[in-house]
């Protein structure tokens, strides 16, 4: 039972992760700073999911990356591309719509 619940929860969250990550990339972030930002909002994301996800987003041209080697520790920064900004606002609208609809459904089912 708890296994099933866990896999359903993971499935439910999977799609929202992309939105969560994109929303934090309006300003350049490197891996760990992104994790921290997400965690302060209460979103826990497995690190083993996050870094590959960033790479995929880059491949889909939603974000661009650059190495900053001015510090003693080189860091890879990710930031939204023009295209990424567009997609993010679309996704955001979609998300608001969905939560609104689901809210209504959930309230309806409680009665």
């Amino acid at each position: 039972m708890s296994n099933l619940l866990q896999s359903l929860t993971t499935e439910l969250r999977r799609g929202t992760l992309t939105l969560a990550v994109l929303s934090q990339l309006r300003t350049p972030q490197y891996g760990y700073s992104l994790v921290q930002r997400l965690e302060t909002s209460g979103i826990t994301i497995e690190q083993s999911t996050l870094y590959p996800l960033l790479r995929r987003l880059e491949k889909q041209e939603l974000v661009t990356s650059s190495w900053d080697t001015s510090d003693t520790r080189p860091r890879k920064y990710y930031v939204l591309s023009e295209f990424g900004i567009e997609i993010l606002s679309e996704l955001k609208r979609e998300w608001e719509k969905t939560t609104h609809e689901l809210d209504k459904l959930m309230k309806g089912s409680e009665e």
Partner: protein
Amino acid sequence: MTLLDVYIQEVTKRLPAKMRADIGLELRSTIEDMLPEDYTEEELLAVLAKLGDPMKLANEYHEGPSSLIGPIYYELYLSTIRMIMPIVLAVILLTFVATSFLRYNGTDLFSFMVGLLGEGIWMALGTGIHVLFWVTLVFVIVERAGVSPHLMRSNAKEWSPEELKEIEPIPKKKAISKAEVFATLVWTAIWGALYFSAIDLIGIYTPREGGGLELVTSIFSKEVLLTFWPVIMLIIAAEIALSIIKWVSGQWTMQLALFNSFYNVLYTVLFIIILTTPTLFEPTFVSYMTNVFADSTSTTVDQFFTWILASAIITLLVVAIISTLDGFRKARL
């Protein structure tokens, strides 16, 4: 080498070479971000535990399909194997049993049967593995090549409900049963296998003392027949193509009838060429027949051969014409 190095190596060694350096560097800087200055081993272990199994992490980076045959092709894959497996097994085993019996030299029947059974099982296993392997390979390539399943639809378009109007129930007289196609494929494989491996076993036999048969002479010259191999392969390919079209279409159509007549013309012409080759018959067979006809006054051996060839050619023509006409008749129904 520190534990950190080992961890990064464990991840990157599972990645494509061109991604390794970049991902390795990023991982290192991330892990160091998570650690205080002058960290202890426990602190490092705790951070690595947070990142998790290197194999899992490497898997997440992996692009492309993570299954050998994805859901789009899985059903087709299974039904292809279900279709091909029995045909190939039947053909291989039938040919094997037939040629074994032809080569049976009358020694101990029991040990012959046991040997036959043992070899048969071995052969079936080997054949099964071959079929699985090659079919799987083809599907894996198709999956990797990203062939869209829409391409497999006859009109290569997205499905629309309008198509339902075009699907008419197939009249029984027009329908081509799967059993018929199956039988044709088995037949193709059997004659193909016989042609290439055992044509010299078709001949004149006499009973041997103590049971069994002895081959007096083959009828056809194997060397001459084998020089025709490209022609035979062409016929076999056309036959298989025809069977596949029949299988997919499931009914006679004008295109199918046209292809069928093309196939009939092709094999008739090619077989007539083969039949009229002067060296087609084994010399020993010719002299054997000369002896048979030595006493006869009414028929000479030349007349005999002419008569045989003429009737073979006429049979070929009649069968081809009937098949062609039948195809067009059914297509027009």
